[in-house]
């Protein structure tokens, strides 16, 4: 009965590869998010997606792209991986577009070699 799930939990890959991280929520929430937590534990929002509206943090490179096949899923695609992409990526969801509590997934630790 996991609320927000992510796969894979760990991802190790070579520089230059393209990879995806999947996120699913079974809470019936309307809004989903992706966050990046760097090696210093600093959490930064990357995207938020509410139905048809995608809000992108302007500092996120365009190699990163979210894809939402339906309301329950928001996958993260990363092209041409770089060493600096190594981090833990968290997916989250919230009921609506207002100031709601966000529920986080367990995180995906990405290591780029």
């Amino acid at each position, binding site marked *: 009965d996991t609320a927000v799930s992510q796969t894979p939990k760990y991802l190790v890959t070579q520089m230059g590869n393209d990879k995806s991280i999947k996120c699913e929520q079974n809470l019936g929430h309307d809004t989903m998010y992706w*966050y990046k937590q760097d090696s210093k534990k600093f959490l930064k929002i990357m995207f938020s997606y509410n139905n048809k509206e995608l*809000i992108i943090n302007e500092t996120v490179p365009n190699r990163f792209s979210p894809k939402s096949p339906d309301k329950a899923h928001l996958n993260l695609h990363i092209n041409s991986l770089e060493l600096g992409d190594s981090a833990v990526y968290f997916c989250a969801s919230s009921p609506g577009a207002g100031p709601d509590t966000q529920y986080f997934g*367990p995180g995906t630790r990405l290591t780029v070699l």
Partner: protein
Amino acid sequence: AQRVTQPEKLLSVFKGAPVELKCNYSYSGSPELFWYVQYSRQRLQLLLRHISRESIKGFTADLNKGETSFHLKKPFAQEEDSAMYYCALMTGANNLFFGTGTRLTVIP
């Protein structure tokens, strides 16, 4: 632009001692503030939000708009409180901006 500052990266207190984790924010709009906690090997989870004005696990936090602060307090720390604590500010776009986090260690 919005900003959340947690001045202490590391904080150690003895069990039973009071604890205060500092958080200051900068935001031109009306702030919605949260504290999130990440226990070892667990996912990030909400601890409390200022509009609820509730106490969770003995923790409280009061929004002080004059000092633009939202410090987290607990009168008597427990070992199980050891974790990473993040203060977060929600903007009108429903995006959470996190501080850099404070790692709290409660010494037995």
